[in-house]
């Protein structure tokens, strides 16, 4: 049986239970149910958020966001500038605290401690987390070592089509090349959950397609992804939510609040 088939079954199964009664099973009653479900779910990652509410800079960005993304799924978060896409991703990654609500990462039915989320999540923000003065190779080797990855830097660079840039300092690269080198960090160390903020911004069509292919591979390997973007992204596969559905005031199209970093 192929991996995507298995994922399909897992999703279907989890959907069936989670659709209505997930909370009772996971939270209050919890562990008593575990043996029954563990066979089907054992290798399925879940990222779940409940009742997320955030106010930033005097603006109510969003209220009561519930979402659940399972291994093999990608969720695309849409919305205008300033609608809170970045803030939502930062809350999911643990970089920001929500005013209310919880974020839960589960492997099968086993909840991962929030302090351990770091080893399960890749956050790919607006900025590429690259040092301009250092070479592409030095940057990639640093992240590989720091994040405890085992991938081969040359192979990953070749995959991202930046192999010819390995010995150039980042400052000599174009915006799209930097984005690709930045994305290489996600492939250097394995994390099942990818949170991508405008992953294809500044990229040409070929590079965008490459990123989409890589995300799709990640999904096929049982990973999950949430991408905030206003561009088309994995349209054949993605579910999407619109931040406007969670806005309580007229927050859409507000200017960026400057707290994006």
């Amino acid at each position, binding site marked *: 049986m192929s991996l995507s088939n298995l994922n399909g079954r897992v999703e279907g199964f989890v959907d069936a239970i989670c659709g209505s009664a997930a909370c009772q099973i996971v939270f209050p009653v919890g562990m008593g149910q575990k043996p029954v479900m563990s066979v089907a779910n054992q290798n399925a990652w879940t990222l779940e958020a409940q009742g997320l509410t955030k106010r930033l800079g005097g603006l109510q960005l969003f209220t009561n966001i519930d979402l659940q993304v399972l291994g093999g799924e990608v969720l695309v978060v849409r919305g205008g500038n300033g609608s809170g896409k970045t803030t939502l991703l930062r809350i999911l990654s643990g*970089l920001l605290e929500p005013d209310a609500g919880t974020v839960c990462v589960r492997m099968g039915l086993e909840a991962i401690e929030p302090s351990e*989320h*770091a080893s399960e999540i890749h956050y790919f923000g607006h*900025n590429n987390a690259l040092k301009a*003065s250092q070479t592409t190779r*030095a940057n990639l080797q640093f*992240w590989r070592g*720091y*994040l405890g990855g085992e991938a081969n830097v040359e192979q990953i660079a070749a995959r991202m089509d930046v192999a010819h840039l390995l010995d150039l300092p980042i400052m000599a690269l174009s915006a799209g090349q930097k984005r690709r080198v930045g994305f290489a960090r996600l492939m250097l160390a394995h994390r099942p959950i990818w949170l991508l903020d405008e992953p294809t911004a500044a990229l040409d069509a070929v590079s965008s397609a490459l990123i989409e292919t890589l995300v799709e591979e990640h999904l096929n390997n049982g990973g999950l992804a949430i991408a905030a973007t206003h561009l088309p992204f994995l349209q054949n596969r993605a579910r999407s939510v619109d931040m406007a559905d969670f806005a309580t005031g007229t927050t859409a199209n507000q200017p960026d609040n400057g707290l994006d970093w």
Partner: protein
Amino acid sequence: MVGVLLKREIALAYGRGSNIALPLVFFLALVILFPFGIGPDPETLSLVGPAVLWVGPLLGTLLALEAVFQPDVEDGTLDVLLCGPVPLELVVAVKALAVWISTAIPLTIAAPVFGLMLNMDGTALSGTALSLLAGTPALAFFGTMGAAVTAPLRRAGMLLAIIIVPLMVPVLIFGVGAAAGYGDTTLPFRAPFLLLCAFSLFALIIAPLAGAAALRTLRS
């Protein structure tokens, strides 16, 4: 993972210049200009020598601090460090250690050489170098703590100085005290030197905890 971070921080410091060359040039300028201001009397110079050799590294360290967290904030590295596999306290400690190695150590090595321009003898020079070696960790660690507090602010150099300088005053007092007491029969060496070591050990523990706590408040 920690070793990789330390190695990169030091490599970046060497690439930046503001961590090594600038504090050294600043220190040298201070030592050269001082005799012009105070007059060329050798007695006076050797009297104020240890104090000048202490103020130089102290202010020189301040120059390097703005670059500890600010670039990481701007290029997004801090986000990855904040949700990375290494505890934040350890990240702050490694950053402070890198400041000490890349900025404070070169200044400490330069101090006895520069001291020759201030008519200091061998005993005074080695006393000053010894007290700098014991006291500069406190400068680097308290400084990094201040840098963490001001991390989200742009151009935070002035605020950083205001926060850090009061913490550096006792280090300066005991540092110069220990330097003056070294090899001297009337002034104490042991007491100020041990207090200096105590300050450095205190900074070693407190600064990573406080710095990490400051970075965590960025979440709310």
